[in-house]
């Protein structure tokens, strides 16, 4: 070997030729092979594959046609090619992924990460627990919708104006109301459901719940508009 006998990991500096995979036929250490992988027989995978596809590569002079290394590599390449073809065929049968939907999902995550919404006090004033507004608002909207004839719209939860950060919060929820029920009665039912959920499901102290009826709908199923 021309290289310094002390270099390389232990065990690789012994007499060459004991291991067939590392015999003199193998011109390079496979661990450090570049992009053009050379087979133990000295030919590159690219050349073998080019031959198979009908564009003769640079077969070395006198290289055996039935070289075991080339044959084995070709078999592996055929298996790989088969898998690629099959996957490609499956892809053609499935609709192309909507790149804009993916991009919008990524951006939603980025926005949520950067601006998760206001943190609202959870529990008692002296505690140090919090809930983000989006999570609280969703739970309160769900509670509002347990009232028959109610579709919840936007829900804002914020510390009451002029109070400290750990003061009880004020909830403002917009709803669409079914036309079958008197609005004051429906609004009171929503207020009660929201306040109950804030206490029982979340554990957030609420000072007031404002219910804003923004629209009416026909409870037989069709929107009267």
């Amino acid at each position: 070997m021309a290289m310094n006998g002390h270099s390389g990991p232990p065990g690789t500096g012994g007499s060459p030729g004991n291991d067939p995979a590392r015999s003199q036929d193998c011109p390079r250490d496979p661990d450090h092979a570049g992009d053009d992988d050379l087979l133990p027989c000295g030919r590159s995978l690219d050349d073998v594959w080019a031959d198979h596809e009908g564009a003769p590569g640079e077969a070395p002079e006198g290289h055996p046609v039935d070289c075991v290394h080339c044959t084995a590599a070709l078999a592996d390449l055929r298996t790989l090619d088969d898998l690629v073809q099959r996957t490609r065929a499956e892809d053609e049968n499935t609709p192309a992924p909507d790149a804009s939907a993916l991009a919008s999902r990524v951006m939603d995550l980025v926005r949520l990460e950067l601006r998760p919404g206001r943190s609202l006090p959870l529990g008692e004033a002296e505690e140090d627990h919090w809930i983000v507004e989006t999570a609280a608002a969703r739970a309160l909207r769900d509670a509002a919708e347990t009232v028959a004839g109610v579709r919840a719209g936007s829900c804002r939860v914020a510390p009451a104006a002029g109070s400290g950060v750990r003061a009880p919060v004020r909830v403002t929820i917009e709803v669409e109301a079914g036309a079958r029920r008197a609005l004051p009665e429906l609004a009171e039912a929503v207020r009660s459901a929201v306040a109950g959920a804030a206490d029982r499901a979340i554990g957030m102290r609420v000072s007031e719940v404002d219910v804003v009826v923004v629209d009416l709908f026909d409870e037989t199923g069709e929107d009267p508009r």
Partner: protein
Amino acid sequence: MTHDARDGREPVPPTSLRETGERLALAVSEAAARVPGVAFLRPRLSDRLRGSTALARLRPGSAADRTPAGVRARRDPDTERWRVEVQLTVRAGHRAVDVARAVRAAGERAAGGLPVEIAVTVTGIV
């Protein structure tokens, strides 16, 4: 690196503080994940955009794979207390504030005697 050995007191080296913080965050994270009602600790943005294991492979030893998801521990140099912030998602059917209190208690037990203040933020209910 120089060591200030006046009065026989040596300042805590920054690397040791960082390691303590990382160990504390990991211990609290593991304890929090076992609390009933905790769905999961809030993943970092990098975890969401690509598998955390893939990121760890890509950047072994980086801060991203040493810091557990959803937990941040910082030491207040004035009070010498650790402030640990836990962000998590609660399972529906569990009262959020009760889960937060249980996580705080579990985190304090997991801190192994370090002076800690644990703040829990519920980032979602599923």
